[in-house]
């Protein structure tokens, strides 16, 4: 008897199409961390990321009959996730709610100073990612954080590879500008060092 862990995504989806819920659970197990991470980075909220990731799998399940195996289940999931993030961003723009919870979900620090500094750096970077426009943020996160290639990002987002390269480049520029601004602001408010009189 073949265990589900050994089956490919395509084989699992075939089983899902014939009503095998365990096969679907295996697909969720296999991809859940990637989806939660991607959607958390896109939305800037751990809770919303998890919520949208669940919805992402529900949508995959509901459209299981239309799934055609081409070895791209991961890309399909990223596409569904990206669409969800766009819808969520539109909804939030309409409500004019600013996304400020970029670092939520992290555990309270009870760690050495070096780790605290590292956490602060990460938090700063996450805040800056949240400032990048979503159309540049999505390809940048897919490429730099999720580790997809330009071609894979292009397939997920449904655009040309050169468009992806351009968007990633613009995303990096926006990210760098935001980080520079934050650094500049910090240097204005923080003391530069102790002066001995």
């Amino acid at each position, binding site marked *: 008897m073949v265990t589900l862990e050994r089956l490919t995504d395509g084989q699992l989806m075939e089983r899902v199409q014939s009503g095998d*819920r365990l096969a*679907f*659970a295996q697909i*969720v*197990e296999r991809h*859940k*961390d990637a*989806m*939660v*991470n991607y959607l*958390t*980075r896109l939305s800037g909220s*751990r809770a919303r*990321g*998890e919520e949208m*990731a*669940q*919805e992402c*799998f*529900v949508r995959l*399940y*509901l459209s299981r009959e239309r799934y055609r195996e081409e070895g791209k289940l*991961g890309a399909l999931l990223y596409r569904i996730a990206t669409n969800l993030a766009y819808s969520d961003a539109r909804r939030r723009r309409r409500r004019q709610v600013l996304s400020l919870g970029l670092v939520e*979900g992290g555990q309270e620090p009870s760690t050495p100073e070096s780790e605290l500094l590292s956490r602060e*750096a*990460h938090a700063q*970077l*996450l805040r800056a*990612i949240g400032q990048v426009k979503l159309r540049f943020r999505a390809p*940048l*996160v897919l*490429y*730099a*954080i999720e*580790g*997809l*290639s*330009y*071609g*894979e990002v292009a397939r997920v987002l449904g655009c040309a590879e050169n468009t992806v*390269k351009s968007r*990633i480049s613009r995303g*990096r520029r926006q*990210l*760098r500008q935001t980080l520079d601004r934050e650094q500049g602001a910090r240097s204005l408010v923080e003391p530069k060092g102790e002066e001995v009189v």
Partner: protein
Amino acid sequence: MDGERTDRNDATTGDELDRLLAALPRERAGRGFTDAVLSRIDRRPAQGRRWLPLAATGVAAAALLVVVAALHLERERAGRDELALRIAELRRDHARLSEELRQLRARLRREQPVLYLGGDDRVDYVLDLRRFVGEGAGVKKRDTSRGESL
């Protein structure tokens, strides 16, 4: 995901940002994530069925609205027909009365305009109708009752 990392190396050479981004701690799905997804799936068709009574109520309300509107329109149409008949009837009466009045006036002009009211051996009571030609009859009613003699 498959290879295609050569372009990545070219594009990110010396770019600290990508390194920093890649070094970010990865978020992991919470405990019970898969169960939550499966329970959402179980709830979803139920949510779909919940729309059915709502949709049925909506259709029934719409049908009721159509019936009420149709009845109202029908009643309005019937009312309009009745009014039209009444107006036509009034117009016919008006035309008939106008014609009678015209004939009476013409007759007054042709004939001796007196109306015999009665009398005895000594006196005849008549009404001089010339005074009414072109005037309202009501104005002269007092004279009639007086029974002026010619």
